[in-house]
């Protein structure tokens, strides 16, 4: 019996996936549990495993192409099995435009993304037959298995149930949990899904030529997430200039103790912000429609630029961690973020975020809140500046920070008091130890 390979849900926010590359070719033998393809989700490149034994008979979604969750992307079956019915269902359900006999105006690969299951109209105007059942048909899961999967972060779509009618039950979840390979992130280098396209001449004379490149999953996720932030979340901004001489001196002092520590100014900012957050619980909070959630600890999201976008690894309980722990974690997670090996639980669920563009020479900027967090601190570059102290002009290391606040949970004075504490500790980092 041929089995369908469907686009699995590999991250909590994933809605469709792009095939980074197939690890098997049509005609290759595959066995259950063997890596089949690498899939570029909105956040990471994940390995997809075969859930059946047999031969990879047909690949429907090629390298670089996308498919919505649950869409048929390949078929595994016996070498001589007739899979025509399965394939005709797929072509009816899929919205991928079939190659047209008449030359169409320069189709670009962005067109493959339309995820709807709408029937493709045929030339005579009648709708093509609709697939009898979507490949992403209703899953049958025992309540316990559903809860266990949610707690363990296991994607139910990646499992095959062993209960009656394919019901996913406790033992299936336990089996999945004992096979870490099924959810581990691909260790291979991140391949570019699409080769850059040539420039197309513009339709309007003299206008600049352009090229359309498929928006990557992560770029589309960033777009979607940010629109849900700056639109519905009423932002306001508070800026403060902070004298960093003592913090910088502390950093030099600590690094002199052990050159391997490599504490950065940003690590100190993380620690100070976390310390200030637990002193100002009203800022370490999140607006949740019917209630406001206050967090006990400060889980700090640290924005890290990666190829194609950004991601915010989370330093859990930063208020309770030492500077060296924070520095080590940031370094390690940023590295894995750049190779796209962060696990979903490592980049979601922060209580507050920090974005630092100081290394790009940015003096000050505003950042967009990552909902449902209540705020984000945008950190600019530290630079020597003339300032007035005791009626005299002296030179100090100054740094400007701007906090974006969700006004639904943080009011102006609340945010200002918090920022005051951040400033106080950064200017006198001894507060960290008193």
């Amino acid at each position, binding site marked *: 019996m041929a089995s369908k390979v469907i686009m699995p849900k590999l991250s909590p926010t994933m809605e469709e996936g792009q095939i980074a590359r197939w690890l098997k070719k049509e005609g290759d033998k595959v066995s259950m549990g063997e890596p089949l393809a690498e899939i570029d989700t909105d956040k990471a490149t994940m390995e997809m495993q075969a859930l059946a034994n047999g031969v990879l008979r047909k690949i429907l979604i090629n390298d670089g192409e996308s498919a919505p969750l649950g869409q048929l992307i390949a078929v595994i079956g016996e070498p001589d099995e007739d899979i025509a019915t399965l394939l005709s269902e797929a072509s009816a359900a899929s919205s991928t435009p079939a190659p047209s006999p008449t030359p169409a105006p320069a189709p670009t690969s962005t067109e493959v993304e339309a995820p709807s299951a709408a029937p493709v109209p045929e030339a005579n105007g009648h709708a093509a037959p609709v697939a009898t059942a979507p490949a992403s048909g209703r899953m049958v899961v*025992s309540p316990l298995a559903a809860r266990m999967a949610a707690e363990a972060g296991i994607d139910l779509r990646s499992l095959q149930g062993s*209960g009656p009618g394919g019901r996913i039950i406790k033992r299936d979840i336990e089996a999945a949990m004992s096979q870490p390979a099924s959810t581990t992130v691909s260790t291979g280098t991140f391949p570019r899904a699409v080769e850059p396209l040539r420039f197309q001449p513009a339709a309007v004379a003299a206008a600049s030529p352009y090229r359309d490149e498929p928006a990557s999953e992560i770029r589309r996720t960033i777009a979607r997430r940010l629109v849900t932030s700056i639109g519905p979340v009423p932002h306001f901004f508070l800026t403060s200039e902070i004298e960093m001489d003592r913090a910088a001196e502390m950093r030099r002092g600590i690094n002199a103790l052990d050159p391997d520590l490599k504490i950065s100014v940003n690590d100190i900012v993380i620690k100070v912000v976390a310390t200030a957050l637990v002193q100002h619980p009203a800022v370490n909070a999140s607006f949740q429609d019917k209630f406001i959630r206050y967090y006990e600890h400060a889980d700090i999201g640290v924005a890290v630029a990666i190829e194609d976008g950004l991601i915010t690894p989370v330093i859990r309980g930063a208020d309770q961690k030492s500077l060296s722990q924070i520095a080590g974690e940031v370094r390690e997670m940023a590295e894995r973020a750049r190779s796209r090996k962060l696990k979903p639980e490592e980049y979601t669920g922060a209580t507050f975020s920090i974005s630092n563009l100081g290394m790009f020479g940015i003096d000050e900027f505003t950042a967009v809140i990552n909902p449902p967090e209540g705020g984000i601190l945008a950190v600019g570059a530290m630079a020597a500046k003339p300032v007035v102290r005791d009626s005299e002009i002296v030179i100090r290391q100054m740094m400007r920070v701007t906090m974006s606040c969700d006004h639904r949970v943080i009011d102006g004075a609340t945010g200002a008091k918090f920022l005051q504490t951040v400033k106080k500790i950064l200017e006198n980092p001894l507060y960290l130890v008193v």
Partner: protein
Amino acid sequence: MPIITIREALNQAIREELARDERVFLMGEEVAEYDGAYKVTKGLLKEFGPKRVIDSPITELGFAGLGVGAAMVGLRPIIEFMTFNFSILATDQIINSAAKMLYMSGGQFNIPIVFRGPSGSAFQVSSQHSQAIESWYAHFPGLKVVMPSTAADAKGLLKSAIRDDDPVIFMEQERMYGNKGEVPDDPDFTIPLGVADVKREGTDVTIVARSLMVPVALKAADKLQEQGVSCEVIDPRTIRPLDIDTIIDSVKKTNRVVLAEESHPICGINAEISTQIMERAFDHLDAPVKRVSGIDVPMPYAKNLENLVVPDVDRLIAAVKEVAYLD
């Protein structure tokens, strides 16, 4: 500890309570001169005399009503029905008088009465004399319903029932009077109403069983253990109030549950337990709750058909395997 039959355990309980409290008296058909139709009241007339142990005419509604009146004026009657099949005639006194008196008198009259007697399936006495009607009585607020499955439970629970200030329906399984078990001889031994007993601990499947189904469940659990399936057997002992917490705790541990009863499935106690499990432990269920009940027909007279109606070890084993996804 002495090993005695359920019959003897019940006799001890009544004797000890008659001796302990002179307000307690016993009334029913054949309870005195004949020592009881099932010999539960053996020797009591001789020991306590005709004022405390009273033969009634064959008028269930009448002597049940006498009992309710006696309770209203401060006595503590034990009313024996020769079997609970005949209590059907007395349901107006039980449900409309005994159960509701405390409420309708604004708390002035509590009814410390025990209605007791054999219940459930018997051997080849056919449809009218072989049936389990506990769900009728458990339906009504104001009544407590007790169904012991061992000699010790029978004694400890009956003593608590007699001492209880509210009407208690005490259902003894007609086939089980001869079952033996260890029973403490301490005259102060009682078992509180409303507390379930874990008859066997296990990890894979919870079987909730009462009355006749408890020994059946324990036998099924033994056989399943040989196949590597560990069953926990819970006997609620009291149907109302029901100790649902003990059942829920067990379901949270095993994630699978089989409910056994000899009564009919529709509107039965298992239907109620199943609902409460769904309400309180939905996220802990790995399989639908499975009921094993008496077949939904009047009890046949023919031996072979009777055997098919009452749930047996094989039906329980099949149900356990179904919820454990075995075979």
